[in-house]
């Protein structure tokens, strides 16, 4: 097993009331969600020692995994369509995305599970904001912080010790790659959130949410391409895995950055991410409604 969960911090007493006044005004809801995201960013930025501890650990893991890839790609120089430098870049980018996409579970998932256990979630459901969007904003804020701290620093260290591949080609092509990668990472975080949101809500029906979390983490770690590029799997499995929602979390954004998806393939990749995001958003809304019904009928 790779890294264990980030230290579990006590759930924030989310300051609903502070933001509530904003939602009444025109254009207020966007400002509300922006404020939630900013608040979440700042909250995680407050755990400074935890951040450095995490950066250190991400970097150490990056080294270990990079050497194993190097050993494999030295034997098979173009395995899975990646050259050595692309494969090493894949490792370090994967480490950079680990926390933003919360591959090990967590982020707002911890908060929601805690609120389900202590019953606060029932109160949340009566608030005049959409819970899914509220928690999505919070998770995007968290992911933003983790990308800047625990994403970038290990990547820079990795770049010092290994030859990593940066987007190449004409300035226009480079710009398109960077823009595509940015959008793709944002969608990756969104899809990852939506999956974790679904998993967290199952806590309403199950006594112990740990089982569901373990299953989703295992599926996510493997089918996202975080452990190995999906193209290394047996061909049928690889083809199926490429279309699953987990591919939207790691495999697609990394392929966009490594320019394995350009032109039509780039558009197709982003569309796949967008499609899963839409589908999971809908599923989340349905499940959320079922939860509200359950809370109203049984009083939580």
């Amino acid at each position, binding site marked *: 097993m790779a*890294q264990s969960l980030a230290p579990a911090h006590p759930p924030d007493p989310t300051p609903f009331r502070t933001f509530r006044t904003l939602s009444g005004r025109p254009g207020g809801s966007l400002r509300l969600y922006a404020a939630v995201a900013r608040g979440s960013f700042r909250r995680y930025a407050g755990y400074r020692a935890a951040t450095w501890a995490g950066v250190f650990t991400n970097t150490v893991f990056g080294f270990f995994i990079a050497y194993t890839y190097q050993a494999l790609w030295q034997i098979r120089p173009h395995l899975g369509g990646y050259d050595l430098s692309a494969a090493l870049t894949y490792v370090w980018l994967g480490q950079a995305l680990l926390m933003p996409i919360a591959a090990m579970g967590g982020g707002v998932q911890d908060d929601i599970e805690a609120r389900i256990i202590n019953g606060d979630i029932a109160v949340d459901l009566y608030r005049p904001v959409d819970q899914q969007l509220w928690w999505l904003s919070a998770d995007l804020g968290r992911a933003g912080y983790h990308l800047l701290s625990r994403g970038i620093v290990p990547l820079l260290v990795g770049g010092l010790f290994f030859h990593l591949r940066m987007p190449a080609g004409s300035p226009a092509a480079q710009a398109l790659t960077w823009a595509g990668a940015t959008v793709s990472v944002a969608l990756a975080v969104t899809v990852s959130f939506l999956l974790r949101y679904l998993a967290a809500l199952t806590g309403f029906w199950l006594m112990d949410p740990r089982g569901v979390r373990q299953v989703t983490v295992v599926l996510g770690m493997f089918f996202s391409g975080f452990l190995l590029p999906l193209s290394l799997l047996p061909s049928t499995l690889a083809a199926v895995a490429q279309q699953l929602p987990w591919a939207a979390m790691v495999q697609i954004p990394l392929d966009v950055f490594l320019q394995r998806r350009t032109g039509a393939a780039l558009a197709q990749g982003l569309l796949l991410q967008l499609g899963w995001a839409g589908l999971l958003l809908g599923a989340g809304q349905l499940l959320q409604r079922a939860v509200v019904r359950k809370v109203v009928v049984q009083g939580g």
Partner: protein
Amino acid sequence: MAESLSVPPPWYGRTREALRAYRLVAGMWLRASLAYRTSFWITTVGNAVTSLLDFVVIAVMFQHTTTLGGWTLPQVAFLYGTSGLTLGLADLLVGSLDQLGQRVRDGSVDTVLVRPAAALAQLSADRFALRRAGRVVQNLLVLGWSLWELQLDWTGPKLLVMAVLVVCGTVIFGSAFVAGAAFQFFATDAAEVQNSVTYGGATMLQYPPSVFARDLVRGAVYGIPLAFVNWLPALYLLGLPDPIGVPGWFRFASPLAALLCAAAAGLAWRAGIRSYRSTGS
């Protein structure tokens, strides 16, 4: 003279008392966890499956090659199994310590210190979770497969080295947990640092030393001596040439490394407790 020999030294009594406290606390948690059978089995299997993922990665890698760093799949599986087994045992025994920073922050270390038992024993046994044995069992299965495939010629000395490997590996990883916990007395938020030695170290030890940069391997021999967990004994057990370039007797020096690790962890723990008892936080 004869009389002084029959009186047990003071550390003997203290150790026995500490083990007793550990057994009492752990036993209570064990009974409590078994009360929820379904939950227990789900999380145990979950633990096993999660820890199996790393072996799936190795298996997929060997779909594309016959050797990695010059080692075959059964040989790498031997490293995987021994690394996971020893980490799993250490995690089972003292893994609860990794939440120490949290306990310092919420002040519950104080409640441990007012009980008449060693703090380390109480804190390691707290939340003792048999579900962590899921990792142990899963790794044992892989190790069993590897030994079956390797068809080693088991001699007395080899059996001894194998047993020593399991014990000393567990002690080395256990020391890492204790030292990591001691560090959390100073940096209560930095629980994750120790993951790079425990879980990170175990990931490294799943692969042959020849895969890694020379300096990294030297660091694992002379720095944090993780190489003594399984790399060095494996060279002897599997009869492989030394890719590291260390004295030959290092293959049998795991007990020495384990002793040094335990001593270092013990000192770190004392420093941590001392710091806590002079700041109260």
